[in-house]
């Protein structure tokens, strides 16, 4: 049985824009704190860890930096079915999310019925720093707003 919603912020908060997913996840939770039970998880690496982090929840939202070549600050939403990988959703030490998800299914892990992925295009991601670049910082409120709206919709439909 699965229950509740988890929002998973991925990335490294010490690597400039790589930490944007974590900041968005916390901001989303702050907005929704008063109306629903929302679990926030920070994850540094994906693959099997990411699958494990959503085990037991009915719904999961994953927020991560992405490096797709789009303009820095671009926000995109992905369904698992048309999703390959954002910056941290695979693990260099085990596997990508899709394989990990199938592995979890195979092993009988209770996995969410609804999963969405959000990517925010990063500009600086391999230099240590605790600040976002201007474009990424500017994209943060919009990303939070869109994710909050999605979670509210899920809740209304349930």
């Amino acid at each position: 049985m699965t229950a509740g919603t988890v929002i998973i912020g991925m990335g490294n908060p010490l690597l400039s824009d790589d930490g944007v997913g974590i900041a968005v996840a916390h901001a989303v939770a702050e907005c929704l704190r008063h109306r629903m039970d929302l679990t926030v998880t920070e994850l540094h690496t994906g693959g099997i860890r990411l699958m494990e982090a959503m085990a037991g929840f009915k719904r999961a939202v994953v927020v991560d930096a992405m490096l797709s070549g789009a303009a820095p600050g671009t926000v995109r939403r992905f369904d698992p079915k048309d999703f390959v990988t954002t910056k941290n959703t695979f693990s260099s030490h085990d596997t990508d999310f899709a394989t990990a998800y199938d592995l979890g299914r195979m092993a009988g892990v209770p996995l969410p019925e609804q999963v969405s992925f959000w990517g925010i295009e990063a500009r600086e991601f391999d230099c240590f720093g605790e600040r976002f670049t201007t474009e990424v910082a500017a994209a943060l409120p919009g990303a939070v707003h869109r994710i909050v709206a999605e979670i509210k919709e899920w809740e209304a439909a349930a």
Partner: protein
Amino acid sequence: MTTRITIDPITRLEGHGRIDIFLNDQGAVENACFQIPELRGFEQFCVGRMAEEMPVITNRICGVCPEAHHIAASKALDGVFGAEPTPAAKKLRELLYMTFFVTDHTTHFYALGGPDFIVGPDAPPSERNILGVARKVGLEVAGDVIACRKRNHEIITFLGGKSIHPVAGVPGGWSRAITTEERTQIEDAARKNIEFARFSLALFEKIVLKNPAYLEMVTSDTYLHRTYSMGTVDAYNRTNFYDGLIRVVDPEGKEFVKYHPSEYREHIAERVESWTYLKYPYLKKVGWKGLTDGMESGIYTATPLSRLNVSEGLATPLANAEYQRMYETFGCKKITDARYEPIHHRMATHWARLIELLYAAERMLELALDPEITSPETRNIPDPARFAGEGIGSVEAPRGTLTHHYVTDERGVLTKVNMIVGTTNNYAPISMSIKRAAEKLITSAAPEEAVLNRIEMAFRLYDPCFSCATHFLPGKMPLTVSLRDSQGGLLREMRRKA
């Protein structure tokens, strides 16, 4: 109709997942190098901060081995503050570390190293993964791997004070004692880990050692390099992952040097070659002779296999029996009462990793059964009179010896930070294995995917850790192999997209 959107995180990361193979004028392989991504600005980021922040900063450098950085950083702080941890604290740190080793080595074998052996080196990339392993071995193995990770992650969470990024390491010890109920849970998990490690070794025997083709892959000279071996040893010269002296044996197995981790600068130097930006560490007192092996070349290896090569047997009984079996399978002669001639066949690193998995599980049980493990005396509060302002902490990370070195001013504010991470030690051997694979494959008519995978297998056995976004999945890593002439001109390029 759904449009499939591919987001390739590698496209913008130039130089990542790139292998350059340089040919000489006769068309033979001269050099090979693997471009490893590096994060910038770490020292700058740390200098000016309070030293005691380091265990929680460094454990975020890498998502794969935060525990290794946390423990090495805690040990470096013991030095900075002149605070010797209590016996219980050392045991708690080692206990956390053994729990981590079990999950890390398990995951590597089933998700990364194993697929080449269990599914086959020439199987299509879509099958050469952990799902392919489960389909071949039995679906229940998927559940066993997940259950192994789960029970050990739970322990890491309460022992380390936080999931994934531990926070319990402090100068002079550990911030948290464990209860008797927690101890019972750890004991139970350790017993299950031992059984799972034995199962994994039995699987390796059944599928690899009993299959002549795979046994040939392990024992052939394709990836054979007679380098020096490095590892941390206890007072009896046996492998220890948490603490001890660094022991180096020469290619024939004779002890070359044994030193305290704080003396690393006297023994290790770094070589910069004009054709790559990588710095290759080597043994200073032997010297750099290029990417070549043998007694005269200072290249050393720091891996599960090299750790067993320097060890006088293993300190736990089941792992020691497996250790002996591996060396006897290779026909190695005993050179001391407990130790054998070194194995230089790099594919045996996968086997050594499983033996270490069993050792870590057995050591975890020993520590769980130690009466002192539930002691509330987990910390010595630093005495300002003993403040040293400099500390070096070292552990064996799953992928090689890891060293943290901090210097502070009199207030404990960092003025200098240096780290040698596990993978760095192996830059030269990794390049040599890639070069060797290339030599065998360059003139072969093998299809491109097969060539790319054989080259990948060469570096995957070292379990290198890339601290940021490089794919490293069997058959899935976007990989570009470029053959270049002696002037650097491109002769041929083989490319695999994600």
